[in-house]
């Protein structure tokens, strides 16, 4: 018996989406029977743009791939370029990179907690978690001078040191945030009404998680023990090991719990790090031209594994940089898990992976005759303008 099906388009502009993305959902009544996603609306051509700037200038361009996890992009890039150049940043610099990365994780996870609570209709949690997030924003501002895009990294080191004043701000901030995180953990695992939106919703088994290739907290909430900080320690993570937080239930509730427990782990790591911060220089000399070669650099961003491929032809500009952000790896899980759920669960399901569209949009499809051709910057630009006009 064939039933009439409804197709509901969501996006690219939609109140439930903070960034542009397009979802096509087919529904049978209130139940979703199929979902597909179309990305690429926030494609900015960054990978092409880095090829026409020098290694130092690219640091700041790449840092702006994401407004939330900016530091981790810069760190992945710096570590990769340093590897190519055969330079290692001093231990104190590596520790400060880890420090800023972990503070950034706090700010990212708290931001996510608020957004996810808002999607669930729990605006009180949204407001209070964001109020508390200000604490870590102020810590970051004291440490680096900026709330976002801290620009703490340099090729070959970092710009900012931790002095006693900053140290005290960080430690007192952490104490406050730790109490609050315990409180939020109680709420997300105990509030009866909130649990109706999260418990048993978006179930993903660890086999599914492996098959869909999800990363980060989304994978860890499904029992996949994978964290680049432990599996392939970079910067100073070999000196400051973390405990990987894993939950096995695989539903939305588990994704909340994993992220909040990760925060507790992060507070612990920062305290240990500040306790034994190595003395020494903040930076070392970097050559302007980077030896020819190619390398990859993997780091654990707040949303999962962030991957950089960097290729140099020996000049003062990179030959190719490829970035893969965790949202891309996690996106497939949203369309897969959507089937069988209520339409009203879709915003929560999407938020569960903590998507970041503009970080993710690396590619846009261009149809040509099939023969390969090389485009100039100008042609690419003109094509882009015309194409966006056409798409409206």
């Amino acid at each position: 018996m064939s039933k009439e099906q409804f197709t509901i388009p969501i996006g690219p502009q939609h109140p439930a989406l903070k960034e542009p993305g397009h979802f096509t959902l087919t529904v049978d009544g209130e139940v979703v029977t199929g979902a597909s996603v179309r990305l690429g609306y926030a494609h900015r051509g960054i990978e092409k743009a880095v090829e026409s700037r020098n290694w130092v200038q690219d640091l700041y361009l790449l840092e702006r791939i994401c407004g939330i996890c900016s530091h981790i992009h810069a760190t992945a890039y710096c570590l990769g370029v340093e590897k190519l150049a055969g330079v290692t940043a001093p231990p104190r610099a590596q520790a400060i990179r880890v420090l800023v990365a972990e503070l950034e994780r706090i700010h990212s996870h708290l931001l996510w907690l608020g957004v996810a609570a808002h999607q669930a209709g729990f605006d009180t949690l949204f407001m209070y978690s964001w109020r508390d997030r200000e604490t870590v924003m102020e810590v970051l501002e004291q440490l680096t001078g900026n709330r976002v895009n801290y620009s703490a990294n340099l090729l070959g080191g970092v710009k900012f040191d931790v002095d006693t004043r900053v140290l005290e701000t960080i430690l007192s901030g952490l104490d406050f945030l730790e109490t609050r995180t315990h409180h939020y953990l109680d709420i997300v695992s105990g509030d009866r009404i909130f649990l109706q939106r999260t418990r048993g919703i978006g179930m993903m088994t660890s086999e599914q998680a492996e098959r869909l290739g999800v990363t980060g907290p989304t994978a860890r909430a499904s029992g996949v023990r994978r964290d680049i900080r432990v599996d392939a320690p970079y910067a100073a993570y070999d000196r400051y090991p973390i405990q990987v937080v894993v939950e096995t239930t695989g539903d939305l509730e588990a994704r909340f719990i994993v992220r909040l427990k990760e925060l507790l782990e992060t507070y612990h790591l920062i305290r240990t790090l500040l306790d034994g911060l190595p003395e020494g220089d903040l930076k070392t000399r970097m050559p302007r031209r980077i030896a020819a070669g190619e390398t990859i650099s993997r780091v654990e961003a707040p949303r999962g594994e962030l991957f950089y491929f960097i290729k140099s032809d020996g000049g003062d500009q990179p030959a190719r940089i490829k970035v893969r952000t965790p949202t891309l790896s996690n996106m497939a899980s949203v369309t897969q898990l959507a089937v069988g759920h209520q339409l009203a669960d879709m915003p929560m399901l999407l938020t569960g992976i903590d998507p970041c569209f503009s970080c993710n949009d690396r590619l846009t499809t261009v149809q040509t005759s099939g023969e390969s051709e090389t485009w100039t910057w100008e042609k690419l630009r003109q094509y882009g303008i015309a194409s966006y006009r056409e798409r409206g």
Partner: protein
Amino acid sequence: MKIETMLRDIIQSLFHKPVTELYPAQRQPTPQRLRGKLRWNPEKCTGCCLCVKDCPCSAIELITIDKDNKRFVMRYDAGRCTFCAQCVQNCRFNCLEMSSEDWELAAMDKALFTVTYGREEDVQSLLGCVAPTGDPAGE
């Protein structure tokens, strides 16, 4: 299982003053390391242009007035600057610094973002022969 898990937070908030900052009526002190408008000191500048070379957004330009006597003028466009402080790092003679006080840079006119720094007579001589942009008095 509980309900009203956040009731205590709400009640407590009734007895606290609001956390929202009443900017611009009330100003919080700025953090010491805040990176605001760039400042340039012409006295020590050697004209090496290392700052210009690595600026990611071409926000600074060094104009040579008299190379032998090391007289330069710097044109800075705060509208292009991303406040990354790479230029400050690059300068080996500490000519550059980013102000932690001067950060309210919004303007209604694009030209106001451009500032010409330098010795007064150099700025004057430059602006005499080139069309003036922005704040001709410099700082």
